[in-house]
């Protein structure tokens, strides 16, 4: 472990997309005009494809090694080296980051291809791909950077690209506002993240091992135990700070508010950045630092509770949304909550497993919804859709598979990964049965809102206007092909992580060198089976309700929405009014402070400055008067007096020597008397 294998190709996995971004960013406008959009597509897709192939090579290279020796490093140059701080620009991969780079380049590559179809008519085609590639670079940097600071570069880098792509159609302020919101909310999270980095460095530096490199932190993590700051354990505080960062990036309570608005961006962006990859960065970070989180049980509890709360909370909001992408957005927030639930019960492997399967089916759902929106001429309101299964068979079938997966239908990827999380929430040493009950409830809600969407969009009568109906069409091949591949993944991805009762998980085994031995069989297999059946049953109930309401129309949705005087429905529909509350307190509060600051400058400080200037001016004016009238008068007076005195004393000058001598004698005598009398 201490002498990792050096390679020199890892850098290209990360840097190739950056080159693509640079090419399209700097030359794209010209290329697009002179050569055509295919050149842009080539510069955008080729680097990601090569990165994917190199990632596969990395996977094979790792597989060739003994499990406990599985990691590779590629060191470029020292980035910051000051005092005890030494940070290199270095990329490393271990089994955990391998999963991530395969997801990022694999699913990312498919979404690049999809985008060539989806964005084909956009006149800023080049700008779109420049940012999409830049995003891929930043995300790869985030997962392969060998230290916290480099990870942070990727961490903020993905935030920047997210901002730029949410506000991609910047002519409309709805989009730019959503972009600003995403970046600023993420900045709040990043504020916590950097403080976490500082705290870890400081704490280890106290012990003579100041570092921010992951492997070294892991090596010296035990030294941090027992250290306190402000009466809180350093490990607890550092992990909490970092978790603030995770709530920002992964849209957990209380920083979840930006993600639904982020759907203003082009749909492939929603799929790649706001579903499959970037938003999972928080889960990855917690898993990456699992040795710290496991050493801080208080933080783990916070992570689990926040994850669980977010999962349920946003599932309820998803029940009441009518925008096809908003439903998926809240569903993403909810699924991320499940991942944090897993991480919070120290089942990091289960979290990463769900991260991976979710990447497939959620990307498939988003791209499917993109295909629908494309066909509907930009319409996103589900109440105006319906019956689309005839016009778009590929989209329909792939969407169906993804819906089955997210609802946790047995034998799909989502089933295995969600079941693993629920089982861990029940049986892990950090868990509690309550978490399991809530988790299963959330699974029921998930099944309901996903099938509600499915039926509203693809079944029943088409509710669109005749013009839209006439133009319904299946999407081009570039868009359909990724859908098919992702649908296949939505099923197959689960099979590498079979639950223990079905023969054990290859996936857990793969991650074992990172997370340590898998918690095997901490409950009887029979119990696991019963719990599994219960959770499938609850999901089936959710499906059945949706089926009755939106397929058979035998049950009016109003019967539920009017419960408790419609209060609950309004609460869900309006997202619990969190946006309004934040707007009032945080945005309003900050602007108020800003105005107070500006006021102080203008009316207090400048009042004093200008006042003292004016006082000085007044004093000099007064001085002028004094000079003219008092001083000059005195001067003149003295001059006059002197003159008069001189005139008078002239009479003393008689020319009589005796007279002078008497005067001198008198003066000397007087001086002698004075001297004798007073100075002796």
């Amino acid at each position, binding site marked *: 472990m201490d002498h990792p294998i050096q390679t020199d190709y890892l850098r290209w996995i990360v840097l190739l997309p950056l080159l693509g971004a640079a090419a399209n960013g700097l030359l794209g406008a010209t290329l697009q005009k002179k050569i055509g959009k295919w050149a842009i597509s080539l510069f955008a897709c080729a680097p990601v494809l090569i990165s994917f192939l190199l990632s596969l090579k990395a996977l094979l290279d790792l597989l060739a090694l003994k499990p406990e020796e599985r990691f590779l490093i590629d060191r470029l140059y020292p980035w910051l080296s000051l005092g005890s*701080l030494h940070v290199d620009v270095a990329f490393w991969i271990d089994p955990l980051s391998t999963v991530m780079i395969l997801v990022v380049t694999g699913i990312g590559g498919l979404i690049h291809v999809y985008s060539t179809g989806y964005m084909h008519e956009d006149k800023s085609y080049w700008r779109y791909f420049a940012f999409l590639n830049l995003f891929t670079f930043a995300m790869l940097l985030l997962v392969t950077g060998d230290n916290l600071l480099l990870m942070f570069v990727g961490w903020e880098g993905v935030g920047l690209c997210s901002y730029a792509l949410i506000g991609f159609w910047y*002519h409309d302020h709805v989009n730019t506002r959503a972009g600003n919101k995403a970046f600023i909310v993420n*900045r709040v999270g990043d504020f916590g993240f950097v403080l976490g980095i500082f705290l870890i460095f400081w704490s280890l530096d106290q012990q003579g091992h100041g570092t921010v490199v992951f492997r070294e932190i892991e090596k010296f993590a035990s030294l941090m135990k027992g250290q306190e700051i402000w009466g809180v354990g350093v490990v607890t505080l550092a992990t909490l700070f970092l978790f603030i960062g995770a709530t920002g990036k992964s849209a957990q309570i209380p920083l979840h508010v930006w993600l639904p608005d982020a759907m203003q961006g082009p749909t492939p962006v929603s799929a790649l950045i706001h579903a499959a990859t970037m938003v999972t960065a928080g889960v990855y970070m917690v898993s990456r630092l699992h040795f710290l989180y496991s050493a801080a049980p208080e933080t783990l509890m916070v992570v689990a509770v926040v994850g669980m709360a977010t999962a349920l909370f946003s599932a309820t909001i998803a029940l009441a949304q009518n925008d096809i992408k908003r439903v998926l957005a809240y569903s993403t927030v909810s699924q991320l909550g499940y991942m944090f639930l897993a991480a919070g019960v120290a089942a990091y492997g289960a979290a990463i497993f769900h991260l991976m399967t979710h990447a497939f089916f959620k990307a498939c759902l988003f791209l499917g919804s993109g295909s629908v929106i494309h066909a509907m001429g930009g319409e996103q309101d589900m109440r105006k859709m319906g019956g689309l299964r005839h016009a778009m068979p590929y989209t329909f079938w792939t969407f169906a598979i993804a819906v089955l997966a997210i609802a946790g239908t047995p034998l799909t990827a989502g089933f295995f990964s969600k079941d693993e999380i629920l089982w861990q929430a029940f049986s892990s040493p950090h868990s509690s049965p309550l978490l399991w009950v809530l988790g299963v409830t959330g699974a029921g809600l998930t099944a309901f809102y996903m099938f509600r969407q499915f039926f509203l969009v693809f079944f029943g009568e088409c509710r669109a206007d005749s013009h839209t109906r006439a133009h319904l069409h299946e999407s081009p091949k570039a868009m359909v092909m990724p859908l098919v591949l992702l649908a296949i993944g939505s099923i197959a991805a689960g099979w590498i992580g079979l639950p223990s009762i079905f023969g054990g998980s290859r996936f857990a085994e793969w991650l074992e060198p990172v997370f340590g031995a898998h918690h095997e069989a901490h409950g009887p297999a029979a119990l696991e089976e019963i719990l599994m059946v219960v959770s499938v049953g609850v999901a089936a109930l959710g499906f059945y309700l949706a089926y009755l309401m939106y397929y058979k129309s035998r049950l009016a949705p109003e019967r539920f929405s009017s419960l408790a005087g419609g209060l609950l429905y309004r609460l869900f529909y309006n997202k619990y009014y969190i946006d309004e509350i934040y707007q009032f307190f945080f945005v309003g509060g900050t602007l108020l402070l800003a105005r107070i600051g500006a006021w102080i400058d203008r009316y207090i400080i400048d009042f004093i400055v200008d006042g003292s200037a004016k006082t000085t001016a007044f004093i000099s004016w007064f001085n002028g008067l004094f000079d003219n009238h008092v001083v000059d008068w005195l001067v003149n007076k003295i001059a006059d007096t002197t003159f008069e005195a001189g005139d008078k004393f002239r009479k003393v000058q008689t020319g009589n020597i005796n007279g002078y001598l008497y005067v001198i004698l008198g003066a000397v005598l007087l001086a002698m008397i004075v001297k004798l009398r007073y100075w002796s």
Partner: protein
Amino acid sequence: MTENVLTYMTFFPLAGMAAVLLLPSKSHNLIRWVAALFTVPPLLFAVWLYRNFDPANPGLQFVEKIPWIPAYNIDYFIGVDGVSISMVLLTALLCFLCIFASWGIEKGVKGYFALFLLLDTGMMGVFVALDFFLFYIFWELMLLPMYFLIGVWGGPRREYAAIKFFLYTLFGSVLMLLAILALYFSSEPHTFDMTKLIAQSGKYGTEPLTIWPFDQWRWGFQHIVWMALFIGFAIKIPAFPFHTWLPDAHVEAPTAISVILAGVLLKMGTYGILRVNFPMLPQATADLAYYFLGALGAWNIIYGALCAMAQKDLKKLVAYSSVSHMGYVMLGMATFTPQGISGAVLQMFNHGTITGMLFLLVGVIYDRAHHRDIDGFGGLAAVMPVYTGVTALAFFASMGLPGLSGFISEVLVLLGAWQKYPILSILGASGVVLTAGYFLWTIQRVYLGPTNEKYKTLPEINGRELFTLIPLGIIVIILGVYPHAILDLLRSSLDQINQIVIPHLS
């Protein structure tokens, strides 16, 4: 040649001033090109210095010392260490670029460029002077052309701004002069030689004085001198509450002068504290750094950012962002950790390049639209995409986006601060959120959204303007990726300064 390189570098612009004054005042282009020509050698000298400077040597290099006024032990004494060389490099670069940013000046061209070159010499002089008397002369030399450049070539309220600037800085100068004389008379034999004053730093009294009101403050002679110098420098930084000259001066000054003002002049405040207060008055530095550098720095960060958020004038917003960003420098200096203090000086350099870009960019739009009202634009990205791209680079650099230079210095400062004053580090870090807030809000209002009909036909940024911006943009990126290009210069010099102060920390 090489032994007098600092002298050549410093006085070349002065020769340029003489040359400009000899030219006929009607031939504007000739004057501009001659002025440009005379800023090239200092830049080349500065680059030569950068390449030939030995970063491992913490002492002064390229030293020149000639007796000047022997009766008072005043020498012509100049030299550079790592800190000053980075500032000299910045000054030479910005002066060169700003000549081109001044191309549009049509009024009193001869006078403008003559004063500009005089200002150049003054600034170089401040950064290389090692004799306190010489330092003060350069310090005042720089004030004068600045006053006229704002007061004559400025905007509508130029006279108010110029006088405000002049009074503030004059007030500081007087305090500084008193402090310099106090140090002179308490050194034995009396000297203005900074290296000797530093060597005697142990002698300046720290025993509490009993002069009212200091009898309760436990302040000694050293503390009072420190405070006098500090106020003089704090006005330049500018530290709260001495900062209100800055927004006015910036708003009224012509673009190039704003760049110089923010890019170079502000650095003199923090440079002075580092060069004078730290090594000469280490005990007072150790005693007062927390309140007057650390806490005040953190306050500057937040207060400046909040004020920036409230501005309606784009240039004023950038001016207040300077107040905020110079706060990081103060906070970093107060930490006495290798990371914090290096971050502080790197931040001085980075702020020079980034804010230089910001003011140049404001100038570009002002030259076209003739106003700077943030709410009066909208959708410029569609009209001027290249301009918007460069602006985004500068804005995000100023926001401390990782990968660009501002991030490195801010993170080093905050990392250093955490080790000494975690609360101040938290406060400083929260400034990062506010900064993102006001810059993004500005981008949104000026560059994004529906295009304002009035400005549909604004011409794209031109070649000359790009020429002033691109070098700075490249530096911003390079220093984000490879910060040791500057950090290596600073390390040993700053270690030495730290080593003087650290023993005095209780």
